[in-house]
């Protein structure tokens, strides 16, 4: 197995603030890599730096053997990287349909088939197809945000806290869908719901104060109570 995405010694500043000090990570092809860490640790900033939404000051982001740091976000997206931001990034004045349309890079059969699959996964979106995105419920917005990333045939998906605001039954569904996506897509996931993270994650990284402080296979973490207590405060 090879690493689809490698992040090396990533440092990011936002304005004058030094947010990421030293981030390392590798996302293996076909795996779900989970980033864990407390609030404000820098998980979101890591994903944003990969996406080019925050420009890293130094370090490397390597995707499919090529360095992509410094590229514009749209270029990075067009390499086949999808992104679900933590604040959902819904276009509130656009309808659900229009939100999806903006996201769809192609209109081919494959994409339409995927759209079908998504609408079956989240029937709410079908129900509210013509409704303004801003008028959806919190959970529905989350679904829409995930749906926008799913609709394109991405090689890599960066997903920031997908389970937040979702009803347990939908969390289940999202987990299933990620399992399904895994066949073709590599996934980097930020998730606070440890149940979900541990169930679908293959590899984990713990980020603290802008640094990756620990990483390993998910099994290890599940078994290692000490580690969990130390970094995640849970037994």
């Amino acid at each position, binding site marked *: 197995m090879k690493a689809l995405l490698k992040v090396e010694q990533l440092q990011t500043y936002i304005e004058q603030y030094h947010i990421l000090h030293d981030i390392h990570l590798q996302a293996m092809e076909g795996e779900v890599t989970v980033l864990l860490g407390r609030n404000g640790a820098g998980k979101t900033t890591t994903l944003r730096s990969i996406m080019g*939404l925050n420009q890293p000051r130094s370090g490397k982001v390597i995707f499919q053997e090529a360095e992509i740091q410094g590229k514009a976000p*749209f270029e990075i*997206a*067009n390499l086949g990287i999808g*992104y679900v931001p933590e604040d959902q990034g*819904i276009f509130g004045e*656009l309808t659900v349909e229009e939100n999806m349309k*903006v*996201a769809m890079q192609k209109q081919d059969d494959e994409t339409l088939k995927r759209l079908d699959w998504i609408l079956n996964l989240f029937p709410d979106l079908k129900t509210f197809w013509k409704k303004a995105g801003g008028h959806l419920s919190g959970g529905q917005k989350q679904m829409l945000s995930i749906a926008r990333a799913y609709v394109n045939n991405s090689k890599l998906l960066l997903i920031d806290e997908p389970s937040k605001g979702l009803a347990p039954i939908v969390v289940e569904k999202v987990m299933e869908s990620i399992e399904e996506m895994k066949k073709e897509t590599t996934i980097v996931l930020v998730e606070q719901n440890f149940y979900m993270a541990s169930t679908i994650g293959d590899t984990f990284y713990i980020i603290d104060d802008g640094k990756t402080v620990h990483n390993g296979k998910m099994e290890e973490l599940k078994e290692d109570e000490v580690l969990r207590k130390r970094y995640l405060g849970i037994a």
Partner: protein
Amino acid sequence: MEVLVNLAVNGLATGMLIFLLAAGLTLIFGLMDVVNFGHGALFAWGAYAGIWTYVTTGSFVVGILAAIITGLLLGLVLEKYIIQPVYGNHIQQILITLGVLIVLSEMLKVVWGPNQLSARTPSYLAGSWEFGDIIIIKYRLFIIAVGFIVFFLIRYILKNTKIGLIVRAGVINKEMVQALGINIKKVFMYVFMVGAAMAALGGILLGPYSGVIYAEMGMEFGILAFIVVVIGGMGNIKGSLFAAILVGVCGSFMAYYVPALSLAVNMLLMVIVLVFRPQGLFGAKG
């Protein structure tokens, strides 16, 4: 009866002219949410470049092309160097585009001198037809026609292509659009250029309408364009068309029947519309 027809046709034509001036602003202000006070300067430049070319080459069509090209070029330069850094910040937009308005208006005087220029109607569009007491001015029919063409063109672009959607999405959340793989910078640039070109087109068409162009026309008609875009409903091209026609027709009838109020007609119209429909004629509620 004849009077009514005359007033209606002339009001409609004036409305169409105003629509042509405002159409570009519907894109730039209404859709892209850029408070572009420099818009008026764009039509003044369109008018000067167009009329000058028309006079030099003798061809009105070439003049129109020149105006459009001038608009595109100015749009390109403005977007790239002036507007791009201030997207999303109305306060900075106001200041910087006021600067642009001043610079561009004064530059006109540097290039073409401070005097007004006379703008003649091309002979094939000059004059009027008379049917009894009904007088139809040819140039006005021409304006009405061009107005409809421009209207349907923009509507087509906005309705049947993804561009309108992308721009609206980009205004709401630029980052997210980029993260979806769209080069929003480019899209914004093209839309701005088209908006500028339409302003320039409005400018040259205004020339023969009143027979004269002058550097201050930008400031004078700029506000009118804003009024039309706002009372039509932000970013709604159909709204702009209706609002422009409303302004034109009301102006025409007021001037005939209630001349005492004709100075105030635009302002009154705006007050009435905004008090009863705060979101504008065709604006989405909320």
